[in-house]
């Protein structure tokens, strides 16, 4: 057996253990579960039927199954990165808005307080 398939099997087992731990701790959400099942299925497919991986790789224009796997991984990482970027941007926008609202509200409150104080002082002086 080619070393890459041994690595793939080890990776598959690692994913499986991770999945079990998360299910046990009830920390898994449905989207994450689907994602890991897909990864696991792909790993099993590659290790049990190496020819299938090679044929799929050839179909997409890659020389080996491993090249195809790496390219696919990079694509998935980019999608994750984009998703994280969008989420951070959205959070940053919300934080900015919150910061702004607090700042303006406090400033207006301070102005109102000082105006009230001035008018009360004016009444006392009269």
């Amino acid at each position: 057996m080619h070393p890459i398939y041994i690595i793939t099997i080890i990776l598959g087992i690692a994913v499986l253990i991770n999945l079990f731990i998360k299910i046990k701790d009830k920390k898994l959400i449905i989207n994450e579960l689907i994602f890991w099942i897909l990864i696991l299925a792909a790993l099993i497919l590659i290790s049990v039927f190496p020819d299938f991986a090679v044929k799929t790789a050839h179909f997409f224009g890659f020389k080996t199954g491993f090249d195809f796997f790496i390219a696919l991984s990079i694509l998935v990482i980019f999608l994750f990165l984009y998703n994280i970027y969008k989420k951070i941007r959205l959070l940053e926008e919300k934080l900015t808005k919150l910061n702004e609202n607090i700042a303006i509200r406090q400033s207006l409150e301070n102005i109102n307080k000082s105006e009230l104080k001035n008018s009360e002082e004016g009444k006392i002086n009269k």
Partner: protein
Amino acid sequence: MQESFKTYIIIPAYNEAGLIAKVLKDLFNYGYNNIVVVDDGSTDNTAGIVKKFNAELVRHPVNMGPGAAIKTGIDYALLKNADIIVTFDADGQHLAKDIPGLIKPIINNEAEITLGNRFLNNTSNVPLFKKVILKTGAILMFLMYGIISSDAHNGLKAMSRTTAQRIDIKSNGWEYCSEIIEEVRLKKIKYLEIPVTVKYSDYSIKKGQKIYNSFYIVSKMFVKWIFG
């Protein structure tokens, strides 16, 4: 004519205790009474100094960056029914005497926004490295947004109330200047570049944008340009 327009001067400030008093004095001496200092979560005595003046103080609970401070200042000025909003740096680089030249085209309906440009006259002592960075930025700005402005990252700007309502600043950092240019192009806002003086001192150079920060700004602009 100018008196009938309520002009608000927005000063974003972060740890500017060293020079903010001088900046405020300069503005008050020129008769500008509607001044808003947006203290962007300073850890020094910036807010304490501002309180001694008749300026309005808006304090960010945490430091968010100059873009966020400008946005807060603009929104605050709009709440206060400002007709014209001027953005002004807190590090003493800008001069109050340049403000009338910026707001005049807006009052005369010649422009909806005016952008201060330090390269249109020879009154600014721009250091060479700064000149190179700003000119490179101008080329990038043209390539990305199609707008020719040799000094897009000048903080001295003036805009009408309607323009301030239309411009949507989303960037918290220094790249907000590029974002304003992008908004000007996208929303077809009538703009004019006005010659202004930018005074460089040891303090402003120390406080201003660093070379490595310029690369960071460019990278953020680029990412925003791609991903939106």
